[in-house]
């Protein structure tokens, strides 16, 4: 299940960071802001899109949870725990 979310997250991040990095080349351990230039606004937009596609409700998370999601791996793990819980 996490694999699906990881692919969705990779596509979502690649789409929002405005660079030529292919989804498969994104480093899941890299800080998304420092490495890929993800702004705070685009981070919110990215998470919104990924949650929508993965059918995970953003309502499961708090603003502090979002702040703690710094890497692609953080996103995959957090959403993976909530997959299939869209309300």
């Amino acid at each position, binding site marked *: 299940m996490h694999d699906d979310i990881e692919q969705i997250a990779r596509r979502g991040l690649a789409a929002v960071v405005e*660079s030529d990095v292919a989804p498969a080349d994104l480093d899941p351990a890299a800080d998304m802001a420092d490495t890929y*230039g993800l702004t705070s606004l*685009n981070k*919110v*937009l990215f998470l*919104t*899109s990924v*949650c929508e596609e993965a059918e995970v409700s953003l309502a499961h998370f*708090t603003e502090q949870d979002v702040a703690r999601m710094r890497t692609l791996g953080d996103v995959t793990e957090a959403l993976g725990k909530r997959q299939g819980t869209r309300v």
Partner: protein
Amino acid sequence: MTESVINHVVANPPGPDHRIRFIRLFGTESMTLRELHERAEKVAARLVALGVRPGDRIGILAANSLEWVLLDLAALRLKVVTAGFEPGKFTSDTALATRYDLRLIFTDKPDEQLDSLPINEVRTWSETSDGPVAPPPARYSADEPSTIKFTSGSTGTPKGLPASVGSIDSSITAVQEMFAHGPDDDIFIFLPLSLLQQRYWIYSALRYGHDVTVSTYEAAFATLGTARPTVVMGVPGFFDSARRHIEGRATQIAGDPAAARRAAAVKLFGDRIRYLWTGSAPADPDTLRFFTECALPIYEGYGLNETCIVSKNYPGHSRDGSVGRLLPGKQVIVDDDGVVSIRSDHPVSLAYAYAEPGDSERVFGPDGTVRTGDLGYMDADGYLYIRGRADDVIVLGNGRKVIVRPIEEKLKRSPAIEEAVVYCPTETYLVAVVSPATEPADEAAIEEHVDRINTMSAPDERIFRVVIARQRFSIDNDLLTAQFKPKRRRIFQAYRADMVRIQEDSHA
């Protein structure tokens, strides 16, 4: 002027028909504006019981919330001055209280509550029915401040800027005349309430009778579509991000591309948008055009912390490339160098507080006229155009003047460049300091982009050398303001040696 908006809001409970909603990621809370008003009165009574008196100052360092709004309205009622601190930029400690003369600080940061009060107590105060009784509502004169804003400018620690009630009244009244917010409107705000202008729309709802929705920054994109506001207040960067999202989503929708973009825009913003509001930084003309073509009219305006809203495009009175017509009570003075100053019937302030000697004199005239440092002009029909910053003008050794903002805009069109600032360290050649979009920087792409721009530019406007920033510009490294604008002087100081070395190398 008609009756003060602030005095009206403080003294008159609103009708029962309109609501305020508070949106966080995990849920939405809604209440009538009348209930909000009643609860703020209870909070005011508690503040008095804590010893807070008219003229005192309280600090609020918290994300957007019901508690934030209750404290603000309670302080207004008591003539207590609020100081809103942007989360992430300030820490609620004793030093903050001392530096800004704060009687109390309220915060939502549990680990910072040693020297402050947890803001969630405010909710409890507002829910208690047997608490103390609040004193009668205060009444303000136009020149009294109700709040203090903080402006980072291009260098140094934030300066204070007490904001007069007259300036708040005149701005809200003028906006109401232009946009006629009515019973069917619901204004969506998500930028920090520490920015005074975001609170205007709550005061507007209480005064004129419309709904208002207050979201956290993080929940805005996720909830806009279902919240179905009629107006969204955002900075240009927000609308740029929204545009890219809509363009991406539209490619997944079959059929006519323009219709697909409109459908994707409705999905993001909801189906009730009457208009979108932007300002505080120059908007990308392509983004403005994009939203207009998506049937979401977007209106750009102009103003500084020191001036409040100066001009605004609005329905039926909008012109491409301009920042709109002047609000009543504002006057633009353009000097011989093209630098814009703003005179206001009700100035925001006459000076900064907590500033270095000379800071105020550089910006404020004796009557509160503000030297903006922006270059601009008015057309024959009264529309204001801003061409750049006066300190963006470089005078070359050959006497020619170069306005660098358009060059910087061209540089930023490269996906490899996040931000760019152009200097002329020896009055001979232009040097760009660029903040790369990625780390490590895509040097080849940056170089290729600069070469392409240079081939299309006049000789004086060509970039002779590029310095790629070792670390991307950020608020944390103090190279961006809180509004994500580059701090020109700081960047110059940080990279002066690199620029000069490059110049020396190039002449070696």
